[in-house]
């Protein structure tokens, strides 16, 4: 996410939020990726500083069973079931694996399968279990005669648990925690009658850290974008180990092409207002110009909170969080060529974790200021007919104010602090080609420059270059695929030091059809057996691993 992760990334599943209510972040190990489709909106335009990740179900059903090295056993996939008035998608991913290597700083494999380096404090048998499941049901039909019109309902239920991995880091930031759990249930019911539409939605989210969050909203509009109106009201209850109960509300009015919302989301005395709108202009020669814009402000204040590592704060200290974005897109009707330019400003209030530290050795910082990012980006998109090639390129630049970074107060205590401004700039390239029906290439590359002013160093764990390219020969049933994943050196500290070395890893995969719906897969990760690769946190990556799988499709 252009060097910004953690609580700066928002995740939803079919429109239902899937984010830890306290941490403001989601553990990537909890994401039900078997759903099949992930849409990423990088940057501040989506309202989150790092970006938004939306998971959706893909068409069709697919199940897989994978066994392999490190005692790996995985069972997962998705099933799409057509219903009389809609469809349901269920995805599940259950697995266990055992690493014979410790996830430790400095560890290296040796030729005997042992380890040449490491740190006992975090040494562990890397036994991991995970279970992730999600069900999305979307049905609709005629409403009962008493209320006329039609009803449509979408229900999303998702839950994940993850255990093991890096026990020594169990109190470290969320993405390094040794165990975690997160669940979310959300529903949206919509009633249409003529041009009028009314909807009711509700979401309940909870995590393993005694937290839960419930929101509900209702609204209606008459569907007329020019002269119509809409009203939304909502209520949220946030029950955490910090506070027994908070409340939230939301009221929105939509008139014409614009919309105004007043809402609060997570915390006591939180409120705000936002307005959004869309302007679509028909240009000569079948070109269209579309301008999407939104602006708003949130107000956040905390009072009388007492956390395990904080003292009470009783003052009402409002924090104003102005947000807004404008994106202009120009594209012909056939949509094979397009360009866009956008600017955005997003703000993030410190999470409950950062302010009140309900767990872990990282202390609280109740006086943290909000992070703010201002983004600018320009992009083009070119698609050739018949799907032979798609090129999308984006150039971006961002300024981050009051960057929140966990730093040492002293030799014994660490806590998040506003460390001042940071900046980043770079470009992204997506290239898809299919010169022959049996040959496909997919390439995604990113160049990133960044600097944290307090240390004159790049954003930690943000490599300047990253690349992923895959070449697939064959069709969807029988294919061989080679994937190269590479990145440049990335500092693992905020000081720009302890860089994780660059690497290029090659993964191979082949699928052999056994029948029209059953296939055998062979996957070789790190086929060249690179022994020195680490992730950006200096945790060692495994050497060559071989997996066999059985895949069933329909």
């Amino acid at each position: 996410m252009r060097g910004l992760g953690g609580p700066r990334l928002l995740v939803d599943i079919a429109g239902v939020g899937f984010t830890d209510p306290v941490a403001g972040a989601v553990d990537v190990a909890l994401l039900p990726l078997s759903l099949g489709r992930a849409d990423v909106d990088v940057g501040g335009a989506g309202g989150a500083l790092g970006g938004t990740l939306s998971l959706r179900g893909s068409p069709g059903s697919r199940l897989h069973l994978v066994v392999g090295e490190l005692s790996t056993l995985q069972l997962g996939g998705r099933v799409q079931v057509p219903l009389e008035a809609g469809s349901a998608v269920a995805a599940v991913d259950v697995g266990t694996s055992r690493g014979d290597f410790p996830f430790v700083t400095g560890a290296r494999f040796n030729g005997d399968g042992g380890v040449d380096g490491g740190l006992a404090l975090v040494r562990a048998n890397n036994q991991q279990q995970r279970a992730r499941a999600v069900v999305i049901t979307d049905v609709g039909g005629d409403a009962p005669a008493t209320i006329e019109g039609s009803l449509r309902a979408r229900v999303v239920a998702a839950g994940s648990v993850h255990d093991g991995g890096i026990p020594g880091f169990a109190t470290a930031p969320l993405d390094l925690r040794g165990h975690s759990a997160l669940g979310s249930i959300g529903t949206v019911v919509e009633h249409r009658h003529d041009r009028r539409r009314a909807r009711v939605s509700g979401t309940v989210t909870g995590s393993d850290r005694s937290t839960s969050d419930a929101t509900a909203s209702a609204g209606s509009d008459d569907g007329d974008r020019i002269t119509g109106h809409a009203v939304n009201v909502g209520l949220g209850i946030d029950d955490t180990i910090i506070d027994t109960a908070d409340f939230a509300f939301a009221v929105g009015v939509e008139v014409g092409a614009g919309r105004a919302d007043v809402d609060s989301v997570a915390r006591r005395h939180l409120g705000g207002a936002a307005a959004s709108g869309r302007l679509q202009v028909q240009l000569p020669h079948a070109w269209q110009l579309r301008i999407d814009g939104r602006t708003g402000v949130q107000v956040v204040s905390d009072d009388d909170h007492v956390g395990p590592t904080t003292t009470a704060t009783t003052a009402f200290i409002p924090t104003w969080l102005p947000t807004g974005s404008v994106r202009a897109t120009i594209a012909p009707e056939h949509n094979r060529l397009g360009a866009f330019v956008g600017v955005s400003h997003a703000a993030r209030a410190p999470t409950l974790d950062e302010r009140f530290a309900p767990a872990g050795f990282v202390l609280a910082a109740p006086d943290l200021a909000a992070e703010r990012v201002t983004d600018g980006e320009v992009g083009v998109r070119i698609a050739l007919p018949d799907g032979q090639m798609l090129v999308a390129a984006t150039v971006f630049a961002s300024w981050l104010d009051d960057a929140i970074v966990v730093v040492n107060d002293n030799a014994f205590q660490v806590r998040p602090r506003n460390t001042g401004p940071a900046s980043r700039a770079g470009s992204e390239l997506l290239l898809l080609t299919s010169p022959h029906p049996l040959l496909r290439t997919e390439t995604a590359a990113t160049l990133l420059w960044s600097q944290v002013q307090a240390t004159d160093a790049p954003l930690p764990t943000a490599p300047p270059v990253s690349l992923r390219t895959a070449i697939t020969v064959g069709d969807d049933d029988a294919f061989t695929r080679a994937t190269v994943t590479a990145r440049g050196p990335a500092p693992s500290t905020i000081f720009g030091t302890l860089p994780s070395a660059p690497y290029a890893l090659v993964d191979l995969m082949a699928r052999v059809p056994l029948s029209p719906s059953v296939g055998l897969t062979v996957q070789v990760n790190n086929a060249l057996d690179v022994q020195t690769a680490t992730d950006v946190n200096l945790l060692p990556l495994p050497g060559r691993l071989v997996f066999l799988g059985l895949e069933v499709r329909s």
Partner: protein
Amino acid sequence: MNRPMPGSAHGVVTAATVVMLLMVGCPPPTVDDGDGVIATGTTPNSVATVRCGGVRRLLVASSGEGSLERMDPEGQTATSTVFLGVGSTPWDVGVLNDDDAAPGGPRAVVSLPGHHSVALVDPCAEVPVVLDEVTSTTTVVVDPPVTLRSPEDVDGDGSDDLVVERMTPRTPQAVASAGRSIFVVWANLLAFSTSSTEPMLSGPGLLTRFTLDDDGEHLTETGHALLPCENPGGLMVTHDDSGAADASDDVIVTCAGRFVVGVDGFSAASPGGLVRVRAGAGTAFVVDDAIVLDNHTPGPVVGAHGELVTGDLLDGTVRAFDPLTLAELRRTEPSSGVDSVFALTVMGDDVVVAGWFSGRVQRQPLDDGPSRQLTDGPSRGLVDLVCDELGGFGLLSLSAELMPFSFDGDAP
């Protein structure tokens, strides 16, 4: 996070290195600020100098890497590394025989809290090599007994115990060389602090001496003393009238005591202490004098101008003590908040230099000498200082760097 945790003896670092340098004697360094930064391994904790073939080299104990790294002071990173074992957490490094003419050549001794042992390393071999790794055979009596939070085999009898009445020495901390011998203090840590209100659990501190054999390849335990205080971490060997350190010199040990660092400050669960031990030639050392320091959490200790100089791990004071009576003579103003003095060294003609975790270094702190900040921005965790006639370096634990410094142009 491998830096000192609340109540952990690991907070006290590298007094042995300081002592070694005290004995060598260091003039003011001449390296310009900001130049010649050297990258180290993860979580470095101690640095020492050694002469290999007459050429100056730096040795860095890298806790996170489990290794001892040899550096060229003019280089940018380690030139050679010896791995000391998974989980060894190298803590302090001292040098024996830092004289090419001595039999066997220089030797490095590294305390390994994670292994409850001490490693003997040939630091000047083309690839440094571990020659020996020894543990203390002394039995430590824990009186009154300590109740652990979970059973563990701490007396080495093969069965887990919940109540500890005796234990084998563990968690060696500082080392200090004296001729062909090396003194080691053991914190005997039983459990880390788990919160801001619960201090570490530990047995009484221990001082041991190991002596290098004639071929320079093995260490043998040649004496010990049980210390009347907890959490020893600082160590220095005093000079005798001959001016040359040897195994029979007096040894000064600082004990930090057990403490916790909370949101609103810090508090002590057991007091700090300052202990003088008469080592002598026998195997049973004599505790010659000891004082309880109710309001001092001493870490490093050096000698200069006929005084003992200590640094506080919590309030950041530097204090001077009478070496004979162990009475406090003077002290600096405390820091605002917690700012540990992990590093003290003596440069040139009895010039004391102190280093704070926040990155501040000060010359002659007790006389309000010039000070400077090694780095800007968030603390990089200054945990050790080293110097010789060619220059000085500050060891930054959080950023894993050796940062050159000098006081050129400052007076005095």
